[in-house]
């Protein structure tokens, strides 16, 4: 994907829905594209130094102690929980097929969210939804 195609992809994702095109162009240059073969772990439970990822193409399985808990697909993101808490991830995130993602280095997430508050708000909404669903399950 060239940078304009990445901008088009970003524009279609909920996380970046409030950004204008010049901002999306800057975002496209801040993230790097990565690709993983099937079965590769992208986040590793218990490992320090992880990053933040947005899925462009493909699916991932979220596994805790080897047991699958969820699937994520295009437009979903992962890695933010451990970075916000400053702790290693509590789950593995594994590529199910070939996976194509945007990657942001862990240490850059705070600055990125501060620079783009609408993205921070969207992320907060997503985290709140997950918390609500977890509470429903518990009840």
């Amino acid at each position: 994907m060239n940078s304009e195609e990445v901008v088009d992809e970003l524009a279609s994702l909920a996380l970046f829905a409030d950004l204008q095109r010049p901002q999306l162009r800057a975002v496209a240059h801040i993230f790097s594209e990565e690709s993983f073969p099937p079965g590769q772990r992208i986040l590793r439970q218990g490992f320090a130094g992880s990053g933040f990822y947005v899925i462009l193409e493909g699916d991932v399985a979220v596994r805790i102690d080897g047991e699958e808990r969820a699937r994520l697909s295009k437009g979903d993101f992962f890695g933010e929980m451990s970075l916000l808490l400053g702790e290693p991830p509590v789950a593995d995130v594994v590529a199910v097929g070939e996976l194509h993602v945007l990657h942001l280095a862990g240490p850059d997430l705070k600055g990125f969210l501060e620079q783009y508050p609408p993205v921070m708000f969207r992320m907060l909404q997503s985290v709140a939804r997950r918390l609500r669903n977890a509470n429903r399950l518990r009840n």
Partner: protein
Amino acid sequence: MTPEVERPFPPGDYPVVIVGSGPGGVQAAYMLSRLGIEHAVISADPSPGGMFRRFPFFQRLLSWTKPHVLYEQDTREYEWYDWNSLLATEPENRAVMPGLMDGTSEFPSRPEMELGIRTFAERTGLRIRHDTRWEGTERDGERFVLHTSDGDYRAQAVIFAVGVADPWMPATPGFEHVAHYVDTRVPETYEGKRLFIVGKQNSGFELASGLLHWASRIILASPRPATLSVNTHSLAGVRARYVQPWEDSNLGGGVFILNASIERVDRHETSLTVHTRRSDNGEPFPVEVDEVIAATGFQCPLVDLPDLGVNVFGQSRLPTMTNHFESAGVPGIYFAGTIGQGVAGLKKYGIPANSGAVHGARYNARLMVQHLAETRFGRKRERPAVKPAEVVDLLLNEATTAPELWNQKSYLARAFMRDEDGTIRDEGIVSLADFVDSAGPDAVAITVETDDTGDIHPAVYVRRHGRVDADARLDSSPLHDYRTTGHRKALQALIGHTLG
């Protein structure tokens, strides 16, 4: 063209074909030769060297070769101080580069680097069929057919070491008036010109550095702020060698660094207008200049491989690969050289490996060929037995001196494994991502890592019951020597139950 009678590897059937004669192709050919695996090497170029036959534009590399260090030049340990020589097992073929450099810089000149690759190929007796262009690829059952300018080659496995070599420019309106980095002219032709450089990576800053003396004004622009390697604690970002334009910009000295996207270039009779839009406030910001150069990078010249099922990603169109540099979509197709940067590895704290440079790619090529030899030709690697009492010292010695661990931090590791009969075996250098993600017998791997503060330290990964549960860091050390009593105790505690 070389007379036909002297040209090796005529079209035909070979177990392996290597395409490319840059450092990646030459390193892979050397490894296959030493393993005794028959192969052909073909290259469109008239001589070895790859991109170094032409670049870097200003004729000086960014990668060091330090002639005088604490280790002899023919030792394995010296490889950390010599990023530009290819790897050989014979002492007399190691460290080719320091002997070819004129002593004016620890960074070789481009001609010295080109000569180094040619000299390595000659000394190690490698043969290459030059002036043979790969033009297309087909499947024929389990084999691949390569169509070339000289005829068809058939092979069980193909190693593509074709670089990230095709100039790439965005399809921005008006870029037909823009030159690519590769078309930069001799510096004096920019005398008094107002120059606009698109891109703030090393190639953009290399041009700015080289033209500071000549251009009347230099503007570097891209949407994202530039980063410096001294801040990323890695080779990512603008290298120290090219920071002069940045300092000039900070002082207001005729160099300007803009965070802006480039939306259009208009041509006038004697000048150009670059229409930019600022990243900070989204406002349009037009700039009038005399010349525009796009330092916007390169793409992999993969010809028709995507049609065969090789998926590519990113602006550079790198293939999706396994941790052993095999196409994820088309097994049997492998990659060597700078293309290997498509395998991210753990990338802890966002710090990338050095796979895009010779000093990282040469180890990747060795790992890839060993894997290919083992999985496709049954050439099992030697895995010597090791006494349990020696494992801790061996690991700490590797963390202190192993060139693979220092050149490819957090990417390659030294591993030891417990066999079914309890024997501890030396696994040699492994892919760290492969080690931590593969189930297997109890084992330990050590590597060297840098964290977000720039602290360099050994990191240990212990596999128990088929799984690596966590990383463990050992303390850093002021002179990077981890062969201390404290490190021994800490490491023993980590691996005691597994290999001790």
